[in-house]
């Protein structure tokens, strides 16, 4: 109906100018992070290292949004639900002393999968806007329920999560040390990135991209889009829950705010800032957003307004985000736009 891409499509790229590809971003991230970590370690810095670790944890949540929005074409406004679910599961079990590092991660995944399949059954059955609103409502309701459940700490949340040792067989990572936690989180996020990037290049991932472009055609080709979407939803929920489970280990507490709309919206903002459908973009976006928030927050407590305004500008003028600046013509599913019905 409309001439597609009037806003997005970059004017034919200047042939003479060589641009950095997205893959350079992938290599640059751990390099920059390791440089940052070693500077931090030498200076004995804790605040910024912990902040950076939090940015990486939030990057996990953003990755989860990107799988849905960037690859499957589903906008979830309630992804914080799974982040919070993972965080609460880990905090509760760790607080009871019932599990260790691995147990906390595994149990949050074990809980997120059935919840996601159940919620996905309802949410994915209803299309488009309904999906968005259901995910939004689901997270709101879950947040309110936790807020009013005394066993889960109510509005105060759960406190007193012990400092952990992560046992990797050959070596141990002391999560009390900011540098070690940062390195662990960096490894985890890069692992998640590589794993998801691989997944999105398998036939499964390709089908998701096809669904995003044109769901009807996928159905005509003999695939059942519904199943693929549900699987993508479950994968995304697990990614969010896994990063959520790391949160109480870093901060030592969880609170109902982790499930609030602000959290979900921030994740979407991160993805848009970073670059939808690139996976690496949201990781950069998360670092950029956490950095921005800290800088702005030191000036004024009303930084939300500035971030909101920047976000709107990004949506209008730079819908491809940071990674879009580095994109070559053929990379990423963000490119192949077919008119969606």
């Amino acid at each position, binding site marked *: 109906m409309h001439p597609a891409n009037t806003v997005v499509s970059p004017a034919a790229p200047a042939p003479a100018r060589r641009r950095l590809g997205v893959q350079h971003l992938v290599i640059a991230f751990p390099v920059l992070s390791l440089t940052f970590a070693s500077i931090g370690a030498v200076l004995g810095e804790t605040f910024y290292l912990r902040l950076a670790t939090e940015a990486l944890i939030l990057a996990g949540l953003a990755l989860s949004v990107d799988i849905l929005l960037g690859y499957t074409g589903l906008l979830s406004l309630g992804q914080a639900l799974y982040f919070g679910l993972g965080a609460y599961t880990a905090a509760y079990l760790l607080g009871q002393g019932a599990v260790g590092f691995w147990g906390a991660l595994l149990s949050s995944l074990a809980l997120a999968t059935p919840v996601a399949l159940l919620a996905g059954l309802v949410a994915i059955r209803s299309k488009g806007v309904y999906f968005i609103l*259901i995910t939004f409502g689901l997270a709101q309701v879950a947040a309110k329920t936790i807020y009013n459940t005394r066993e889960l700490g109510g509005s105060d949340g759960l406190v007193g999560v012990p400092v952990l040792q992560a046992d990797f067989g050959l070596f141990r990572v002391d999560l009390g040390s900011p540098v070690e936690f940062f390195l662990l989180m960096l490894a985890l996020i890069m692992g998640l990135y590589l794993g998801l990037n691989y997944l999105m290049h398998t036939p499964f991932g390709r089908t998701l991209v096809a669904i995003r472009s044109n769901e009807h055609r996928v159905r005509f080709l003999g695939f059942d889009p519904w199943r693929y979407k549900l699987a993508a939803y479950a994968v995304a929920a697990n990614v969010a829950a896994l990063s959520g489970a790391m949160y109480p280990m870093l901060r030592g507490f969880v609170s109902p705010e982790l499930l609030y709309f602000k959290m979900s919206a921030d994740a979407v903002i991160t993805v848009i800032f970073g670059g939808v459908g690139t996976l690496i973009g949201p990781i950069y976006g998360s670092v950029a957003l956490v950095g921005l928030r800290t800088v702005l927050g030191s000036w004024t407590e009303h930084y939300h307004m500035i971030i909101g305004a920047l976000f709107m500008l990004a949506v209008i003028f730079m*819908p491809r985000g940071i990674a879009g600046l580095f994109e070559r013509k053929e990379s990423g599913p963000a490119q192949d736009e077919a008119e969606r019905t």
Partner: protein
Amino acid sequence: MARRPSVRTPASASDDTLRLAPGTSGGAARRETVMTVAIEYLQFVLAPQMLNGLTIGVAVVLVALGLSIIFGLLDVVNMAHGEFYALGAFISMSLYSLGVSFWLALVLVPPIVIPIGFLIERGLIQRVYQHDQRHVLTLLLTVGLSIIMEDAFDLIYGPNTMRPENPLPGSTEFLGVILPNYRLFLLAVGVATILATWLVIYRTRLGAMIRAAAFDKHMTASLGVPVLRVYAGTFAFGVALAGFAGVLLAPIYSVFPTMGHDFVLLAFTAVIVGGIGSFYGAVIAGLLLAQIQAISSLYIPPYWSDPLLFAIMVAVLVVRPQGLFNWMGKG
């Protein structure tokens, strides 16, 4: 954070009356007591609570109608709708502090909100209409807008809860039921506004343009209707309805920066259950859900009413994924 309709007192009162009942003994006397208790229950607990539900329901319908009309015509899910509801309430607070009376504020707020909505639609939302991902992008824009607006309220008015004076104190007794005057007034004004909206959409030339543009905007544009201006006007009208509801509800609930969040969830639920873009759906589902919420909060803790409403919404969607009623472009 959750501000629920004020229900606690009647609920506890009912407990007392019910507990007293078995204490009195004797056959006929007991039957009479049971009857009295039942009537008293109806009179002092159920009826006021249903009136509460009805007033909230009418306000929910006003907000939900705006959402539904905006979606039905523009295909935009306005995530900032709750903030426009709050905007109405805050503007009225500013007007009060200037010495303007409640009645004048009620008349003044919609004309103030309309140009704001018009400019926002033309300046921001219309920019991404041509994009192939317009559903997602317009929604994201309104998310950004809601963040900015909420923070702006916090900046200008401070985070504290404000409560305007009740402009119509006192109550009326009708069939032994005590009805607060202000709620009756709210009910009357709300119903009148809903009827007026219906008239505009289904019985005027302007409404015909709106429905035609929702049905096929290219065809409508080729017939000489300024579709983009109709879009902006409809958006402005929808958010003004929310702002109007904000003024009306401010004396009952309070005014605080995040007031839009809680309320809009109920409106969203009503819109989904009724069918997005449907006029009748928004009205019926809004009234019904508010009633369910009001009555259920007599029996279950009020914070469970959100999960309950959500469960109803899910159940409706499982049976009818498109909601109960049709989109207005069809009707």
